[in-house]
């Protein structure tokens, strides 16, 4: 609480740090995209369709490993699901139909981006709830800090200031 009056001093990170951080973040996000699991013989011959299959597969959770998508997982079930995604695409299903096929069988948990419904409402609202809570805590304090006038100097302080300004002092 003692820091309330010191805001905005020397807080912003060095610009180079920001660039380095952004680069690291990008690298971390690019990692999964670069790695390709799966046997070549399972891939579709049509590159556009195969790309679509991979995009769909990355949206689907492998229920064996749970934190990997079916595109990234080496589990047997993930391989079966990769094949099913490709079979259905090759048979002419669109993206929504393929996702629905897996969703109907494995439920919301299989989708890395769960649908918005009564059960998942809190999950989706959480960022807003957290942000709102943070603002509720920070805003009143900022307003108060902005309003607070610096306390007038008392007699001893004024004398000391005069001394300093005259070039005296200890």
């Amino acid at each position, binding site marked *: 609480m003692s820091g309330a009056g010191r805001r905005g001093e020397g807080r912003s990170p060095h610009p180079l740090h920001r660039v380095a951080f952004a680069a690291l973040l990008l690298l971390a996000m690019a990692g999964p995209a670069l790695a390709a699991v799966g046997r070549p013989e399972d891939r579709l011959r049509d590159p556009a369709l195969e790309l679509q299959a991979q995009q769909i597969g990355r949206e689907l959770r492998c229920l*064996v490993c749970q934190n990997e998508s079916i595109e990234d997982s080496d589990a047997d*079930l993930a391989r*079966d699901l990769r094949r*099913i995604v490709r079979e259905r695409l090759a048979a002419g299903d669109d993206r929504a139909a393929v996702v629905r096929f897996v*969703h*109907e*069988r494995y439920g919301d948990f299989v989708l890395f981006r769960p649908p918005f419904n009564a059960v998942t409402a809190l999950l989706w609202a959480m960022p807003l709830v957290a942000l709102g809570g943070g603002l509720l805590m920070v805003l009143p304090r900022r307003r108060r800090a902005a309003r607070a006038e610096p306390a007038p100097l008392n007699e001893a302080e004024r004398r000391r200031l005069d001394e300093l300004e005259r070039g005296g002092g200890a």
Partner: protein
Amino acid sequence: MSDASAPRPRRWLLFVPFGVAVGAGAGFYAMLRGLKTGDYDPRGVPSALIGRPAPEFSLPPIEAANLPALTSADLRGPLPGPVIVNFWASWCVPCIIEHPALMRLSREGVPVHGVNYKDRANDAAAFLQRHGNPYTRLGRDESGRAAIDWGVFGVPETYLIDRQGLIRWRFAGPITPDVLERDLRPLLRRFA
């Protein structure tokens, strides 16, 4: 900051971190307890098929096991009583653990239907020869496609179908004596 216009320190705020820590600790303790008693399973995934009829499937029999095959028609209501559908494989170690529970249910007259998942027919038959056969009907799901239609993500998995032919319960993992007494038996009574 000593004069009256300065913001008064709100001392109760000091206790907020403490309160958060206590709350988190209580939640963590509840989770650990749940893990121990089996009430909480962090990997547990609810089945998407609860309350719905079994998906369409038609599986061939395993000749060497000398049991009738299993199709979705065998699970359509009305049924004389609740039935159990168990996905298993001879290569699956937890399936050996749960086998005595299935044998008990079958001896008590509960129909237990088996789906043999991604297995060799001879191995499956040898497994039943060695450990005993609890199954009334047995289908062979060599490709695992029927299992995917059920939302199975590993063996063993066990489903309870009520008299109307609706899926009421799914358990992923071995039916231990504890699961049998605490979960399955009350459900069998409820849907009898």
